[in-house]
């Protein structure tokens, strides 16, 4: 490894990579804001940190969004082939930023918990210790969550645009490390939260290593980490199968872990349950977008020629993910765990679009991701509001009769559940319809049949929650819905509006994803 590198260094004149800075401005804005955010932690007095950070985070996300919108129509590869800014990238960036903004609102919420926000006042204080009580009493806030959020979002943007393995790996780490930390910062049930963080970190580190190993093997095969060069090499040197097959398999392990596909899904329920609910919302919505974006680019740009090798593998994984996710969700008694298994099942549905390996497959996957992300933000926003004396009431028994106590919130939550179940006139239905039709058109009709069966199983547990909320009388264990501040209200309203709008009038977003076209190569 070192010998050819040395030779190259001797022969090749080092030139500054040419970078189209405006095309990657959204990334730079977020990254810059993240750095400033760290400085805010260091220099702004404690009382001023939260407002400063909030202005910074929201300002940076909005600015990045404005630039992303202004970039529409851009279609180029910059940074010496490392970053591709094209239609799909921009649509996914837009989705990541909007959803990230809504998650920011959820994280900024301070009204639902009488003790403060969703995060431990000092993550370093031992759970249950004297210190912790002191910090809580004095009303400390852990404002480091904001730089973490910005770094994670930066990583996701890069992940969605990365056009070579090295940058993709860096982005993977930049997006994952802050998430591991955020997952461990819950204010209540801290041990559960820390356990979740550790599990997420250990398994995530494993999967990153798999990814890196696979990337190295593919580099060994093509002599470059670039996706486009890999695809050209594959066309030029067919037949050297083993190295490629193992490399692709290992890289895919890393990505399938991030989207929580079976059999790499075990971390999901624990992490979703243990993490602070706003972080769960953020993670569930955005990581899925970013990881699917990376997977789509990798499969469509560099491994398109190998389609007949990876589609059977993904068929099986998609089928297993849908069925196992749905079946295990039935047995859950905790709403966050149930939503975690539901998110696994949803990943399987999106994989139907991915495995179609066609422009329709790409467009339908993106549509599904966006629809799912908004609904997810909404579901977790509701979860964060349903509380009893000890914090969020995530046990399903606390949701009994909620429809009587809080009809509006119960109705909104039912809407999200119906959308996840794929009932017509909700965004989830249009998404399912889109991926199913792409799947049938690509010849995977049997996979769609599996998807339909999984939908039926899934409908059962979504409906069960509606039954609990509406058809039973409230008991003394029934939780109450806390009236949130404007922050959560905005996020919840946006999620509700999008879930209905994308269900009843989906054409505008279908147009956007269709006009986004295919990946640049």
């Amino acid at each position, binding site marked *: 490894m070192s010998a050819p590198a040395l030779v190259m260094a001797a022969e090749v004149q080092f030139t500054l990579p040419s970078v189209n800075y405006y095309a990657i401005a959204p990334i730079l804005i977020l990254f810059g804001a993240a750095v400033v955010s760290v400085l805010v932690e260091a220099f702004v007095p404690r009382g001023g940190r939260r407002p400063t950070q909030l202005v910074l985070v929201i300002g940076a996300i909005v600015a990045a969004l404005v630039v992303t919108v202004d970039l529409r129509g851009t279609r180029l590869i910059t940074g010496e082939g490392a970053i591709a800014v094209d239609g799909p990238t921009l649509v996914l960036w837009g989705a990541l930023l909007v959803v990230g903004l809504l998650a920011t609102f959820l994280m900024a919420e301070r009204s639902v918990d009488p003790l403060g926000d969703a995060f431990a006042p000092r993550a370093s204080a031992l759970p249950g210790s004297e210190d912790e009580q002191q910090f809580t009493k004095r009303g400390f806030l852990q404002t480091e969550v904001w730089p973490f959020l910005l770094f994670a979002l930066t990583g996701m943007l890069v992940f969605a645009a990365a056009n070579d393995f090295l940058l993709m790996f860096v982005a993977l780490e930049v997006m994952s490390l802050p998430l591991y930390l955020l997952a461990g910062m819950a204010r209540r049930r801290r041990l559960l939260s820390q356990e979740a963080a550790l599990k997420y970190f250990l398994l995530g580190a494993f999967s990153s290593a798999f990814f890196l190993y696979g990337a190295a093997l593919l580099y060994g095969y093509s002599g470059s980490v670039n996706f486009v060069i890999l695809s050209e090499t594959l066309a030029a040197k067919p037949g050297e199968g083993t190295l490629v097959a193992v490399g692709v398999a290992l890289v895919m392990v890393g990505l399938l872990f991030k989207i929580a596909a079976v059999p790499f899904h075990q971390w999901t329920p624990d992490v979703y349950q243990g993490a602070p609910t706003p972080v769960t919302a953020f993670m569930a919505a955005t990581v899925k977008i970013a990881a699917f974006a990376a997977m789509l680019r990798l499969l469509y740009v560099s491994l398109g020629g190998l389609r007949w090798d990876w589609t059977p593998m993904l068929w099986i994984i998609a089928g297993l993910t849908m069925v196992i996710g749905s079946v295990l969700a039935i047995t859950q008694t905790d709403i966050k765990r149930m939503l975690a298994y539901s998110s696994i099942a949803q990943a399987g549905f999106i994989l139907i679009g991915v495995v179609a390996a066609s422009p329709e497959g790409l467009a339908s996957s993106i549509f599904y991701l966006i629809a799912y992300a908004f609904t997810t933000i909404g579901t977790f926003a509701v979860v964060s509001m349903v509380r009893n004396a000890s914090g969020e009431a995530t046990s399903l028994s606390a949701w009994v009769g909620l429809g009587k106590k809080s009809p509006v919130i119960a109705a909104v939550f039912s809407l999200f559940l*119906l959308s996840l179940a*794929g*009932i*017509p*006139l909700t965004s989830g239905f*249009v998404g399912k*319809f*889109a991926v*199913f*039709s792409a799947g*049938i*058109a690509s010849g995977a*009709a049997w996979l*769609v*049949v599996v998807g*339909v069966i999984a*939908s*039926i199983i899934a*409908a*059962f547990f979504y*409906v*069960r929650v509606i*039954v609990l909320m*509406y*058809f*039973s*009388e409230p008991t003394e264990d029934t939780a109450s819905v806390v009236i949130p501040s404007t922050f959560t209200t905005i996020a919840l309203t946006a999620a509700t509006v999008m879930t209905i709008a994308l269900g009843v009038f*989906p*054409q505008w977003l*279908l*147009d956007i994803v*269709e006009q986004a076209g295919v990946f640049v190569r």
Partner: protein
Amino acid sequence: MNVPWLTILMVVPLAGSVLVAFLPKGRGLLAKQVAFAFSLVTLALTVAMALQFSADSAERFQFVESHPWIPAFGISYAVGVDGISLVLIALAATLVPVVILAGWNDVDEGSRGSVKGYFALVLVLEALMIGVFAATDVFLFYVFFEVMLIPTYFLIGRFGGPQRSYAAVKFLIYSLVGGLLMLAALIGLYVVSAQVTGTGTFDFGALVGLEIDPDLQKLLFLGFFLAFAIKAPLWPFHTWLPDAAAEAKPGTSVLLIGVLDKVGTFGMIRYCLEIFPAASEFYAPIVIALALIGIFYGALLALRQHDMKRLFAYSSMSHFGFITLGIFVFTTQGQSGSVVYMVAHGLSTAALFLTAGFLMVRVHGSSLLSDYGGVNKAAPVLAGFFLVAALSSLALPGMVSFVGEFLVLLGAFERYMWVGAVATVGIVITAAYVLRVYQKSMTGPLKPGLEGMRDLGGREVTSLVPIAVLTIVLGFFPAPLLNVINPAVDRVMSTVGMTDPTPTISSTGTSSEGSGQ
């Protein structure tokens, strides 16, 4: 003049339901009045539309509206009616005010679920029922078909009997299974249409006559047919029906069995037959067998029921067997008879469930036959209406159901003599169980405890009279019904015949397709 009749018919009840839902709490009476008024307006509009319907128009659909909805998938908001859908819309529009009036006191303030919730849901359901029959875009039909589940689910689950939650979930899961199978077939159909015509479409007119590979056609047919067979329901997909009918309020049961289940049989004649003619013919023997089994299975179980509501549910299952039989024997009489039967069954189900409901409010909500006896002594008017309903259910000549049943059997005889012969035996069992119910509950010595039973009040009589009148008038003079239905059925028959160059239909006298053999 282009009045968007069908859209208005959907918007009026929908607006009514929104209004009812936003009435202040505790104004139960006002909610009922508003709901009733809106349902009457809808009925009046339906009548006004029906009067402008021209039975011998050259156009397949009338009152057509079409606007692009999701062009990316070739989906449009397209509605229109032919004779078949017109009579079913009229049935829905007639039954809703009847149900509201009859169920005036079914939900009281303070009990679980609010009054306004019940009546708002009924109006939503009315809008969706009209939509599902009016849709001429298959996707739009599917959307109505699925969304209808939600108000029905809440109507059963929030306002029903002690086992309501179980019944509601069972209903929903069965229906969702059917709906999702249909979704898979629907997407398949869309992909096929994209492959054949270049652009995918859901327009019914474009899908009729689409050349679909026979094997694929069979699969797609199954997707649609199973959804309809669960909805209708045919044996062996019926087990949700007795539970749902027994647990729901009588009014809900009327809408569920009287109208909603007709979507299944309507879907068979409209979508299965016309879009998949070859597959329909291929599967016809199996479907006919299922229909025959259903006729006997439902009737025999009805004979042994102790609970009136379950009994009527099983009897409906038997009737659905007749309707399906009429559709799949591929004769004009059979299919016209089926459509008449759908209307007739809607009316007789309404009469039976509503009178049973009136009985139940008088005897502590019991629907057990053993709790009744000799009611005709205490409440002769109630018993009289019950008799009319019962006779209509057993298809006594002079009742509209007789017209339907007779035509279905005639059609069946023309096609397969033995099928007609076997089905006729079913009528005997029908007579047996219907008369058994009447005898056990209404005749004989008055059951102790029923002495002070009130007879029907003015409101209750008002709600039953229109049904009884329609049943008898259309029974003696079915021409208005048949004049509207026959041209539509002729079209269905010619569509099925057109794609089938050598029809196996034997010459049927009146149907013009009997050229083969």
